[in-house]
């Protein structure tokens, strides 16, 4: 802990946090521009300006990370910068930029400047949390992320659903943050350090005590909430349903990636020592959470009539698959989880983009609003086809490859020998079930005759963004090695 305060090289700190700094500066700039310069301008101009600034901030940060993927870590490894971390951060920034692109036509708020600023703050939290290797930094960054998302979820002030979404998200989130902090405090008490490496070193020499189990359960509760894993998933359907579409996309994408990055780091920290390899409490917890999420998520999604809720339950199921990779805790499985999280997030952002457009015209996200989409807008329908089939894990789309890579890594993990095959079999069986509900949406899109027949208008920027995402989903599926320079495969 002392290392945080003392002996820190400020030039290193500047170097390693420059992407976050860029986002912070831009978020202030957005506020100045929107509230100062453009106060008298039309809503459309203000929205465009805010989104352009947000995207340019993300792009600048991406450019920096591309040029400097590696940096010396600071404060005894409280913040690290490795290519893998940079890959996750770049992924998060791309997701944020996509969310900005998809909010250019959003009508849910009259304060686009504040919206963009808070999105950027949340993204800062995501970037920090991905790089953090110290309990305190992790907690602070997660809170920055969560608080931003609570505010964003409530951003549609005239919508009761939005308020409902935010309240549920906030109550569950506040509770689990408290639990996690409590767990962190026990961990600190047991080991005398907040640094993950230090914790791992200290735990390696100690036997498992009941107190440690309590600490781990509490931490699992906190992170389980962030990734919407059973039994901490209850907020997800309501929040996905009520929050403005771009915000739901952000919660489902960037926030997921960041939380899984933390889980990968934590798991590596807790059980880097051989004593914890076999059947440790932490692994057992993760396996149970994973199994529960896979079953409940897939079964819950079967009966949904709202497409957003359907995606929320499917998100729970996907979190379950990814938790398997966390529980396998090898280097490959960690990389595979990151790959899965990033590509899943990309696909989900696309799906929410389509939902937002349909919702704007039909006024609801019920399955029936998608009827005949293929005749009203074939391109949009094609994009939705690609997103949902990728989520279902149909080759040659990236979702299939991500699943294959993840499950292969799980089966190869030495610590997964007891449960690996059974759970992978269950996950694959469950993904066969998942095809049913994805096809329920696609059936509306392609098979059912439309209620309205006039073409569905889409702004060119939204359409271009969605097609770009669809293209990326296809290309990454056909050439999975494209990312292998950043995220090692196999």
């Amino acid at each position, binding site marked *: 802990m002392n290392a945080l305060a003392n002996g820190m090289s400020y030039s290193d700190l500047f170097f390693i946090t420059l992407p976050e700094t860029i986002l912070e500066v831009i978020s202030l700039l957005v506020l100045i521009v929107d509230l100062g310069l453009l106060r008298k301008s039309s809503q459309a101009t203000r929205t465009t300006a805010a989104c352009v600034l947000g995207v340019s901030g993300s792009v600048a940060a991406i450019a920096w990370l591309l040029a400097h993927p590696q940096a010396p870590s600071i404060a005894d490894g409280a913040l690290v910068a490795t290519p893998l971390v940079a890959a996750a951060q770049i992924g998060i920034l791309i997701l944020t930029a996509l969310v900005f692109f998809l909010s250019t036509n959003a009508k849910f708020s009259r304060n686009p400047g504040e919206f963009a600023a808070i999105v950027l703050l949340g993204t800062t939290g995501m970037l920090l949390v991905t790089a953090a290797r110290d309990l305190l930094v992790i907690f602070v960054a997660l809170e920055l992320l969560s608080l931003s998302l609570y505010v964003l979820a409530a951003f549609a002030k005239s919508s009761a659903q939005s308020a409902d979404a935010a309240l549920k998200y906030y109550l569950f989130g506040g509770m689990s943050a408290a639990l996690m902090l409590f767990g962190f405090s026990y961990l600190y008490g047991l080991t005398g350090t907040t640094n993950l490496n230090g914790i791992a070193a200290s735990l390696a020499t100690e036997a498992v005590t009941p107190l440690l189990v309590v600490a781990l359960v509490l931490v699992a509760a906190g992170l389980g909430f962030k990734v919407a894993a059973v039994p901490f998933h209850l907020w997800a359907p309501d929040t996905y349903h009520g929050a403005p579409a771009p915000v739901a996309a952000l919660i489902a994408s960037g926030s997921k990636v960041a939380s899984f990055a933390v889980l990968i780091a934590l798991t590596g920290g807790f059980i880097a020592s051989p004593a914890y390899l076999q059947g440790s409490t932490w692994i057992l917890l993760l396996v149970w959470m994973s199994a529960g999420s896979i079953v409940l998520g897939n079964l819950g999604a079967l009966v949904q009539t709202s497409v957003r809720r359907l995606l929320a339950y499917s998100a729970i199921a996907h979190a379950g698959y990814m938790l398997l990779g966390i529980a396998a805790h090898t280097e490959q499985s960690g990389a595979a989880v990151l790959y899965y999280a990033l590509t899943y997030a990309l696909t989900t952002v696309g799906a929410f983009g389509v939902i937002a457009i349909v919702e704007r015209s039909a006024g609801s996200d019920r399955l029936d609003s998608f009827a005949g989409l*293929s005749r009203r807008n074939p391109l949009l329908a*094609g994009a939705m086809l690609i997103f949902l*089939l990728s989520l279902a894990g*149909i*080759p*040659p789309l990236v979702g*299939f490859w991500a699943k*294959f*890579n993840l*499950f*292969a890594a799980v*089966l*190869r993990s030495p610590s997964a020998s007891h449960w690996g*095959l059974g759970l*992978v*079999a269950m996950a*694959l*069986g469950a*993904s*066969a079930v998942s*095809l*049913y509900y994805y*096809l329920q949406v696609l*059936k509306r899109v*392609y*098979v059912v005759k439309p209620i309205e027949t006039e073409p569905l208008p889409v702004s060119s920027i939204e359409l271009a963004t969605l097609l770009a995402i669809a293209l990326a989903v296809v290309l990454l599926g056909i050439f*999975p*090695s494209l990312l*292998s320079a950043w995220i*090692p*495969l*196999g």
Partner: protein
Amino acid sequence: MLAYTIYLSFAGALVLAVLPRGWARSARVFALLVALCGLAVALAACVSAGAQGSVAVADVAWIPAMGIHYSLAADGISRVLVLLTGLAAVAGILFSWNIGEKQGDRANEFFAFFLALIGGVYGVFLSVDLFLLFVFYEIAIVPKYFLIAIWGSTRREYGAMKLALYSFAGSAMVLIGLLAAYATAGSHTMNLHELAQYPFPVSFQMWAFPLVFTGFAILAGMWPFHTWAPTGHVAAPTAASMLLAGVVMKLGAYGCLRVAMTLFPHGLDPWGFSFLGMDSWRTVFALFAVIGIIYGAAVALVQNDFKFVIGYSSVSHMGLVLLGLLTLTQIGLDGAVLQMFSHGILAGLLFATVGRIVYERTHTRDLGLLSKLQLGKAMPFAAWLFVIAGMASMGLPGFSGFVAEVQVLVGAWQAFPWFAIVAGIGIVVGVAYTWHAMQRAFFSDLPTIDANGAAVPIPEYEPVTLAEKTGVVLLAGTSLLIGLYPRLLLDAIAPAVQALPHALLTGGRP
């Protein structure tokens, strides 16, 4: 060269998908051209390769980190099945020539899905890398759903969803087995031949074999997992039922042979104990196959929907394929592969007759109603066509079905005499249901006078079109040709069967 069958089909599907709506008529011509090119390539490859063994087609490192290659190769079995796919594709398009005549037919989309499905099927038959094979296998699932759900008839959404879920469940089982094999071998390769070299522990093979075999056999319509097949066939539009019975069910049987049996041959070994007379997975699956033969035939006998008759007959015929595979003898395996080809052609012909030529004109498939229509007089072409196709399908010498079924039965007689007898009875029931359906649909002797004693006029239907005639000649001609001179295909199949892993051909024997 064979790889172009895949590329052409996918490229064709892509072009059709982005073609403007109004170009329905050009769409079908374009699709036909693409399918013809595919057939030409397949035929040329078959002729030029002759009796050669496996010919490598392509091999490019695809995902080097995991040892996954884009590698295609074709041995005799693959070439025969690729040829079948080409024929079925051309015939399918010829028999869907009426799609695009009306507004709102969505002909572009129909042919796009059709060609995507064909491309996936070609890919499966040519893949050597298991990952690649699986990718193509799954690519073939989704278009089937849309073909049935959008353009189908009776309970189409139900039939389509059932088919998609069964297929996907089967492929999930296959994927579990493949992943486990990949992780167990630990050698970072998905190449079929390299993985087959790895000595998987017998205990591993004992659970992996039934899993993967069942996964593929679901698509081959193995009893008791066949229920998707009749409903799917009945719901599907004609071209899709032709493909479904003609080639998609072959994917399953091909996977059983190429993946499950080749990779885990010791899964066929005796368990070392006997339970209810079952002493190995081989006997269990052979029993399922025989039950399928009898059950499919018996159910076909009592159907009232003409298409259900053909649908259940497919289950019965695919049972023969599986039985042939499990004999593990040269003649039985030859027969199984030939039966795949033969059934692909004949099922296509039967579905075309029932679904396109009869149903599109009479708008009913109810045998009770059809029997009042005097179809034998109103549609002599259809009647004679069904007689020929039915005879060929029940195993009349001179057609491909006979050669295939005899070989399967001889092989089965060597391996499981009792099963061979029961399967023989199944073939007799096959004669009965074909006869029964033929008689009710075309040659009914119901009185042709109405209540007042006046003669009921013979209904008039549109004449049979040129596209239909061409398709009929193509399929029936092929069946006849193979029936008269089976060596055309057997010369390619037999060496490929001989080249199967030794452990497979001696499997099941201690």
